[in-house]
């Protein structure tokens, strides 16, 4: 251990290098964290622009602005970018910034790997986005890319898509190895596993999920590649293959992937609720166990995405029961957050507003999840807008709100400056209202029978779809305000204190260093005694 820390000794008197090479060659966890976060913010606007195209097309019945073919490209790339280009890299960005600072480490354990795992991401997305300019157009088979639509019937650009997914997977796996190594080896003396901050715990478990399932995804796309170019028949029924096998493999990756996008949010929200309740988190150990059980259960529920593929009834029942079980640890988490706030001393700064909205709206997404778990009822819900409403409730006011909350919560520590609290609250209320306007009516059109991924729809869905589109445009505009708030904070914010939030310095090492956090923190490990509430 000490060897790792010593080898950095020579760098300590340096500040960051100047110019572009600072960012290209950097091995500093803070620089890399910032790059991950800026990257995902840019991708948020690209993926968001695609969502705007989708909502403009669906504003009224009838063909509006794009062809059905381009509409499918929008649906596909919106999903791929939001999942792999926004939510995942943003959480990795927070992990890079905060995990070393929360465990009192000077940097990530494997800084060069860290640099590589970031820099291959823009390459992966450059490849994916370049397919829009190629003959045959971008991938158009949905982010779930079911074979044979994504193999025999795919546009020729599918090969670029496969290559891009491979690179994203490599990036995630390297990032996860780095996070696990850092957490296991570089904690401050006295910080036992059960004293780690919950964000660190949530990422520790998430990283294992990533290492377990990203290779499965790589396997799936490699089999596709072989089917397309090497004449194999993994998913080709005419050659003795099995199209349903693709879905099993995809969702064996896909369901843990869903939790990869929400577990770090649990960690973030726990910290924020604790800080603004001025009260320690309720049920720390049950929080950890809940995250761990959700992660374990995520490996045995995958076929609830496939209730209509014609599984035997034993399969239907098994996956229905196992899926319902997830409600238990998830419910525990919600109740623990409520109990943390109970008898606290609550204030409602922007991070807290987003965290509270997270708990409320994630609960709605969780409850529609229970409805979807009921297999016979799912025959009616499956592949309708009810599903679209469900997963957007857990991913937008869920994962995305937690990311916004975290940005507001930690940005004073990163920049040394406070964001504009009034504008932050305006951003919150605009986002909160428009997100519900966008996604709540989707429950109705879904139950009334509107299938997902269609570019045009029957007349009875018209009114709600127009409302959804208006909500979506509002939500899109609100996020431009976020960009403005961030830039205003960096260039024009008031100086932040070391503690930033009242009482925060007892709650984590990150609040004991200066604001802005020095380029190198914790060249010697901090002491657990400096934190009053060290549980």
């Amino acid at each position, binding site marked *: 251990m000490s060897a790792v820390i010593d080898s950095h000794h020579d760098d300590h008197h340096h500040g960051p290098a100047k110019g572009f090479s600072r960012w290209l060659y950097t091995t500093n966890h803070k620089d890399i964290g910032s790059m991950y976060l800026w990257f995902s913010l840019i991708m948020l606007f690209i993926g968001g622009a695609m969502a705007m195209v989708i909502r403009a097309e669906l504003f009224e019945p009838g063909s509006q602005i794009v062809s059905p073919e381009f509409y499918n490209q929008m649906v596909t790339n919106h999903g791929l970018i939001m999942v792999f280009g926004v939510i995942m890299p943003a959480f990795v960005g927070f992990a890079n910034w905060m995990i070393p600072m929360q465990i009192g480490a000077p940097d990530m354990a494997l800084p060069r790997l860290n640099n590589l795992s970031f820099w291959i991401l823009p390459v992966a997305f450059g490849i994916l986005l370049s397919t829009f300019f190629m003959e045959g157009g971008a991938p158009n088979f949905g982010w779930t890319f079911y074979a044979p639509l994504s193999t025999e019937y795919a546009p020729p650009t599918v090969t670029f898509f496969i290559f891009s997914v491979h690179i994203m997977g490599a990036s995630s796996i390297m990032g996860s190895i780095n996070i696990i190594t850092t957490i296991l080896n570089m904690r401050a003396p006295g910080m036992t596993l059960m004293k780690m901050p919950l964000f660190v715990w949530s990422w520790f478990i998430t990283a294992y999920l990533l290492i377990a399932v990203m290779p499965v995804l790589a396997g799936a796309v490699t089999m596709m590649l072989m089917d397309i170019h090497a004449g194999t028949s993994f998913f080709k029924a005419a050659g003795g293959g099995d199209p349903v096998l693709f879905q099993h493999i995809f969702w064996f990756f896909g369901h843990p992937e869903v939790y990869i996008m929400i577990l770090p949010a649990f960690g973030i929200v726990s910290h924020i609720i604790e800080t603004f309740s001025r009260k320690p988190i309720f049920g720390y150990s049950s929080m950890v166990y809940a995250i761990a059980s959700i992660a374990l259960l995520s490996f045995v529920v995958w076929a609830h995405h496939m209730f209509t593929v014609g599984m035997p009834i034993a399969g239907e029942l098994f996956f229905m029961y196992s899926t319902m079980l997830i409600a238990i640890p998830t419910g525990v988490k919600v109740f623990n957050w409520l109990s943390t706030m109970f008898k606290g001393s609550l204030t409602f700064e922007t991070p807290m507003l987003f965290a509270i909205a997270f708990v409320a709206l994630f609960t709605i997404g969780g409850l529609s999840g229970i409805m979807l778990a009921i297999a016979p009822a799912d025959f009616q819900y499956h592949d309708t807008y009810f599903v679209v409403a469900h997963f957007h409730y857990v991913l937008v006011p869920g994962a995305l709100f937690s990311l916004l909350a975290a940005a507001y919560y930690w940005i004073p520590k990163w920049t040394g400056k406070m964001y504009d609290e009034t504008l932050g609250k305006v951003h919150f209320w605009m986002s909160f209202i428009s997100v519900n306007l966008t996604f709540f009516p989707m429950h*109705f059109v879904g139950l009334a029978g509107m299938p997902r991924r269609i570019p045009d729809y029957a007349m009875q869905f018209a*009114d709600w779809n127009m409302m959804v589109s208006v909500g979506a445009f509002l939500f899109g505009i609100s996020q431009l305000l976020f960009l403005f708030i961030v830039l205003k904070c960096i260039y024009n914010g008031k100086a932040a204190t070391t503690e930033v939030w009242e009482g925060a310095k007892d709650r984590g090492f990150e609040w004991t260093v200066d604001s802005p956090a020095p380029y190198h923190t914790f060249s010697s490990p901090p002491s657990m005694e400096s934190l009053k509430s060290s549980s």
Partner: protein
Amino acid sequence: MLRAIKYSLSLVAALTANLSFGAWDDLNMSPGATQLSQEIFGLHMTVFYVCLAIGIAVLLAMAFILFKYRKKEGVKPADFDDSTALEITWTVLFALILIVLAVPATSVMIKAYDDQEGDINILITGHQWKWQYEYIEDEVGFFSNLSTSLDKRNNLAPKDENYLLEVDEPLVIPTNTRVRFLITANDVIHSWWVPDFAIKQDAIPGFVNTGWTYVNEPGVFRGQCTELCGQYHGYMPIVVKAVSPEEYSTFINEKKEAKIQQALLTEKLWSTSELMEIGEATYQKNCVACHQVGGRGIPPVFPSLVGSEIVMRNKARHIEILMEGVQGAAMASYAEQLTEVEIAAVITYTRQAWGNAETGDGKIVIPKEILDYKNNKL
């Protein structure tokens, strides 16, 4: 504050729902037309009310906490961080609620999975982008295509009630009869969904899935494909017409009669203009989706037929493509989908239209040639 916003939002939603958004049908699942669909609807409502109750309880508790424990001068926050008893209580509570939900869900599931043979068995095959229905016992069948006009889809004509939910030929089934559907696909995965029957089964190449229904009252039931199947996924609706058993047997007899008539047509003498007329109609119905109205396609995926070597000068290969499809490309075989007359006519049409007759050999194809092709293959 949060609660106030939430309430006013739901109030606005409820009000607009009643004023301008019409009936509750637009907000909720349809109970459907069969006993099974009604049981699934009942299950849905049970689960919905349980989730609604939990949701309201959690949000009210939250609103109360947010209001009651907001920061006040001189009030110190509590510092408890644990209560094993409480945590065990609510964990057990969650488990009990789930068991209450799992029991009816299991019993409905078992009913839905009744896999006995039907009195009538219908093979449903999904194609890009139409449904094929074959009555297995009676050996008749047909294709069912979207019948909404392009003008309506492009906002050039007013849309009506069944916009995108209408077909040229609906599936006809008898009432008071157990009908079993055998569901498969020819190219990519589709999914056959009729909400009023509570049947949604994926149509997968190489697999035959089953679903069944028993309709009591005559009626027309509409659904859509629910698995992304390519660019016209949104344009392959399902219409099922349930009729009395008497009407049903008339329908089947007419189908059988038509099949015999069709066979006779191949013997008839055809003029170019007759073939062109049928060919144009067939092209509009089956080919425009990919090859487009002017025949220019969307290269490279859907090749242009205008000035194509095969269309202009290679009649044998032209027939072969229609009959066999093109391996590894989107072009499917039409040997089963179209009659001999239609295939001959559409080949003739594409060889004559768009100036192809002037630049190419302009040869026509008569139905007999298609029949010969089929017979030679046997």
